[in-house]
């Protein structure tokens, strides 16, 4: 599992990529990717293209990111989830909490 981040040229959008299993082991790295970043990006994108599987701990981490974004009036989107991951996001109705692309 590894986390990669890309900041857009104007620093307004931060993309966080999770490669491999998105589970509890990602907790520290995932949070570090966004928590102290200044200025706070207006848009956070979580790219799950390389994510093999997510579990409930991962859903929790996404909720923490959402909470961080909300407190700074930024948005969060989740993209490129594969079929298995999409199903998990679906069951928890996460499309009501995140923009899912």
């Amino acid at each position, binding site marked *: 599992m590894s986390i990669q981040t890309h900041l857009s040229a104007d620093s307004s959008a931060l993309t966080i990529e999770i490669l491999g299993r998105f589970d509890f082991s990602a907790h520290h790295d995932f949070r570090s990717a966004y928590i102290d970043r200044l200025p706070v990006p207006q848009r956070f994108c979580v790219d799950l293209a390389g994510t093999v599987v997510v579990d409930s701990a991962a859903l929790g981490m996404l909720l923490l990111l959402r909470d961080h974004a909300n407190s700074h009036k930024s948005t969060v989107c989740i993209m490129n989830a594969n079929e298995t991951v999409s199903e998990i996001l679906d*069951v928890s109705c996460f499309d009501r909490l995140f923009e899912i692309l």
Partner: protein
Amino acid sequence: MSPVLIAYLRYYERTSGCFNVADQKNIAQLQQQLVDQQHELDIFNHVLQHEQAISQKIFNEILNAQALQIKNLRYQISPAALFRGDVIMVARNGLGELHLFLGDFTGHGLVAAIGALPLKDIFYTMVKEGKAGYRILKEMNKKLCRILPKDLFCAVSYLVMDEKQGTAKILNGGMPVIRVCRQDTTKPDVLLTSVEIPLGILDNQNYEKQFVECSVSVGDRIFLHSDGLMKLENASGGRFGIKQIQPVFENRKDVAEIFDQLIESALEFSGQSVLADDCTLLEYTVANYDETFKRLDTKTQSWLSGKMDWQICLDLPYGSLKYFDPMPLIGKILEECPALEARKSELATIFVELFVNALEHGVLGLDSKIKKDPAGMMQFYQIKDRALSALTTGHIQFVIQHGPHPRLRRGGSLRIQVTDSGQGFDYKAYQRKKAADTHSLALSGRGIQLIHSLAASIEYKGKGNSVEVIYLWE
């Protein structure tokens, strides 16, 4: 010797050739440190395991053990399930409804189990009070949003079974598919997928419209299970999941065999002799209401189902008014009805307000105008005391009547009529004045406003010496 130490020694040997006495002393000290630390870790681990075992036992006693003595409910739940976040709560209310809650908390251990305790209080209290399932979920959600950290939540399957009406109301909030399996194979099964986010994420959620209602017949079986059964792995890392579960339902010869088949399948798949801790499975069989429950319910049913029909008349002549406060007696009467007892403080507010008005303005004929400021309030109560002691005539009558709710199948309607022997007042003029003067900060008159906010209606009758309040509950 520990592997770390061996590696260190080998490196040392390679780089410096040999050991002298000082080196040997160092090595011995390092060795001892490692042994001490290992020992500490062992003790720590032992204590932790011991504490977890105790907590587990306590949680089980509080939560799962008591609940599951329900006829027609079969379950597969490991004693350690709660520590994996799985919670079952089930209870029947006086309306003949069965409420079944299956929750799956994120996280493990104490964290997962602790969220369950406040839910237990909410569930059992509100079911007993005859509250609707969607209201109970709303309260649970509010509570979890308040106490859980942002990344923790609880997926939920909630079933309200009404065997009298032959309906099952089901809500799936983040759980695997809930199945209503027909005993009659000509009728299709009903599959309920998740339609709602789990509890503890968004505050102020409303669940009324998220419940799916389906009709059920005697012998139909409803299956609920937590995520564990989906995630169950075998030796080669494959998952049990929907691919293994679906066929058991689709290829069945009889609904009665599904439960055992599922367990057997899961055990075979995992290659273990016992199912993993979080493979929680519930099966509820729809029963024949008349045969099974009617006998049990008749005693408790009438109070909560709103069909209670009674009227009490309380007459207080002036002698009683001088020395006797009727409020405790009225409170006792209301206490006999669980639904009204649960709304004690609202009802007490209404009764006190009506009584005080009837006494002060009706019987004693006192004018609220004196109460225009705090000094006036003191003066008023002195005047009231004197007037009460000197009373030689007058009375107040309470008529309290209970009947069914005018619009709903549940709940009820309480009619409170208070009549005093006073002159009454021009209530039409009063109401006109009040309607025009909405921002008044007068110290008097707030009582009636309070009743307006608690009751469905308040109406003056006769010459204004009688007032009728209708209080609805559900």
